[in-house]
């Protein structure tokens, strides 16, 4: 039977809890958001003892099926002040599931200044001193932890940014090759982990047995079909493994929705220099790897190993959002310079989207010149030091904008916006405005329909249809994020009606349930209700569901503006 593990950081004790009846059918985001809703006072300071860091594998994680190994990390966000679920790959999720851990709840806060490391294994739970690791980046931390506890253990850790409790801090996860290239990046959850003085969580499942399946035959049948659906779909089966997520640079650029120079234009003259096509060319020439999975059991393989010009490992998990944020948004067009910043972000534990928006604001404020990669690298390096600039930029785009008196800051609810201009992709603009997560694209990824043409396509330039699209995708995504499934399964699910049923069949065979597709959708709605009610009690109002004023400016090449009325925006998540 699965249990909840509570880690009390105040007195360094742990306790196992049977799963309360109300949490039984929940996993991933549904569970992290429910626990936070029930146990965290919405008005608490995010770095106070009252906040909790909740880590939960999805409903399907650990079972023998493709792409079910994602993890949800939740808490009250130090960046937005609202509820947060940040989703990552890595090894921790599957190992927790195999150890029968339905969620880890990190609570309380120690009086002293000492750092802890917690090891969870089949033998039990250990609090270990971690002062020796303090001040280390995620690369050194992961390497040392693999040396000490064995290659292949799951590691989630914070770097210098999380230790300093900066609100742009991420939590990094070791990938199957032992590199901390996977991130629960958004929302400053690294600062929350740092406030608990928890440097790293190590999970060793070597003594664990397979997760129990209520109906192994039915599960096998469904999971076989599932892998087939993923591999047969041209996006998950071909495009993503061939070019990584950066394959989007050219299409979003072509669509006129690639934000350039702090959201001034929709097309980047040098898009090709930072495209997935270019990245793959460089990887091949330098002996890197064009495809790898972010977690065991991934059949999509959209990650990669990127080498520098001398053929030496530089970074991994080099994503579209990262490349846009640090590239087109700042006018840096040298992919190697962008890769260096990505590496620094993973090492220090910084959200790459937030850092890209922040560098754009720094350039806006005239601190460093537009397009100056070396200057941007030097600024980001300050985050690992006690330099005041490091403190400023490590706190993200809004904080940096305030420090510099800059009013052009692309953020919603304090969180920097991702790689699609909301004027030329109005559907995802509605998601930015209304998601309880703050400015976030994954929460309702209308790009898949409006730009890439899934599910018959939509129109990114017109308002029509986008209110329903954003709403429906936000509900569906909340459900997907609760299963442990990688969000890229949305491509086959949007195009193939049998794929959703297949997910339901796997959940039913895993737990002996008889859910329908509608039940899964209803789960998504409940997740949003938990999150939105938390945010309301934290002080969020409709006034927070607004894009910055400058999106009323005209955007080239399509000559579009953000033209939704407030009343229209408010319809998106009405009723939740």
């Amino acid at each position, binding site marked *: 039977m699965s249990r909840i593990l509570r880690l009390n950081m105040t007195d360094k004790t742990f306790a196992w809890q049977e799963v309360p009846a109300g949490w039984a059918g929940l996993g991933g985001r549904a569970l992290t958001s429910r626990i936070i809703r029930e146990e965290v006072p919405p008005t608490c300071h995010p770095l106070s003892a009252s906040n909790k860091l909740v880590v939960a594998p999805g409903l399907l994680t650990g079972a023998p099926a493709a792409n079910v190994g994602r993890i949800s990390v939740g808490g009250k966000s130090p960046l937005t002040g609202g509820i947060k679920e940040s989703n990552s790959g890595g090894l921790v999720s599957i190992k927790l599931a195999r150890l029968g851990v339905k969620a880890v709840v990190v609570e309380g806060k120690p009086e002293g200044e000492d750092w802890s490391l917690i090891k969870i294994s089949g033998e039990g739970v250990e609090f270990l001193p971690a002062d020796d690791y303090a001040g280390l980046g995620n690369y050194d931390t992961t390497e040392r932890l693999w040396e000490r506890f064995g290659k292949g253990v799951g590691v989630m850790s914070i770097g210098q940014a999380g230790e300093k409790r900066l609100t742009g801090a991420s939590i990094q996860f070791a990938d199957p090759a032992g590199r901390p290239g996977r991130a629960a990046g958004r929302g400053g959850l690294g600062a929350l982990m740092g406030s608990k003085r928890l440097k790293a969580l190590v999970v060793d499942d070597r003594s664990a047995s397979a997760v129990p399946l209520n109906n192994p035959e039915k599960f096998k049948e469904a999971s076989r079909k599932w892998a087939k659906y993923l591999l047969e779909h041209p*996006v998950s089966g*071909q495009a993503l493994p061939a*070019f990584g997520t950066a394959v*989007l640079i050219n299409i979003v650029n072509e669509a006129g929705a690639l934000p350039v120079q702090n959201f001034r234009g929709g097309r980047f003259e040098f898009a090709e220099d930072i495209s997935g096509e270019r990245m793959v060319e460089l990887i091949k020439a330098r002996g890197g790897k064009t495809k790898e999975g972010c977690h065991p059991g991934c059949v999509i393989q959209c990650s990669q190993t990127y080498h520098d010009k001398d053929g030496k490992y530089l970074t991994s998990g080099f994503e579209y959002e990262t490349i846009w944020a640090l590239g087109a948004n700042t006018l840096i067009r040298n992919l190697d310079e962008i890769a260096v910043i990505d590496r620094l972000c993973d090492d220090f534990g910084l959200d790459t989207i937030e850092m890209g928006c922040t560098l754009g604001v720094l350039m806006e404020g005239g601190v460093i010149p537009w397009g100056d990669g070396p200057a941007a690298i030097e600024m980001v390096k300050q985050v690992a030091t006690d330099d005041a600039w490091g403190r400023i930029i490590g706190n993200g785009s809004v904080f940096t904008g305030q420090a510099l008196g800059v009013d052009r800051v692309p953020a919603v609810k304090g969180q920097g916006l991702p790689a699609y201009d909301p004027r030329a992709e109005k559907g995802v603009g509605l998601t930015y405005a209304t998601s309880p997560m703050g400015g976030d694209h994954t929460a309702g990824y209308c*790009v898949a329909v409006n730009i890439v043409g899934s599910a018959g396509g939509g129109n990114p*330039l017109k308002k029509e249809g986008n209110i329903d699209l954003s709403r429906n995708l936000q509900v569906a995504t909340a459900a997907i994020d609760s299963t442990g499934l990688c969000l890229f399964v949305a491509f086959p699910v949007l195009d193939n009606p049998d794929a959703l049923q297949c997910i339901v069949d796997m959940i039913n065979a895993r737990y002996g349930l008889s859910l329908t597709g509608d039940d899964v959708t209803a789960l998504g709605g409940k997740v949003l209700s938990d999150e939105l009610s938390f945010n309301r009690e934290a002080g969020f109002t409709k006034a927070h569901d607004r894009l910055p004023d400058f999106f009323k400016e005209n955007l080239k090449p399509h000559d579009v503006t953000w033209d939704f009325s407030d009343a229209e925006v408010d319809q998106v998540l009405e009723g939740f």
Partner: protein
Amino acid sequence: MVTATMPIQVFLNASLRRFAPDYNPYQGLALEVQPGAPVSRVISLLNLPPEEVTLIMVNGVRQGPDFPLQGDERLGLFPPIGGG
């Protein structure tokens, strides 16, 4: 009767570039088409397998293969693509 042709600029992306060995992605391809020619005509002129060209952007707007070109357009051709 000879109809004047009109220039268009074509950009190939992702796996479609393998059909144009010396393709320069910064310049794209310059083609001449008859006004009113559908995008599918360009696809066949370039010897691209039509089933692989699933995303067609004409001046930054997604269109179907029957969309008639008038000249001076920027045409982006893509295979299935996704990410995020």
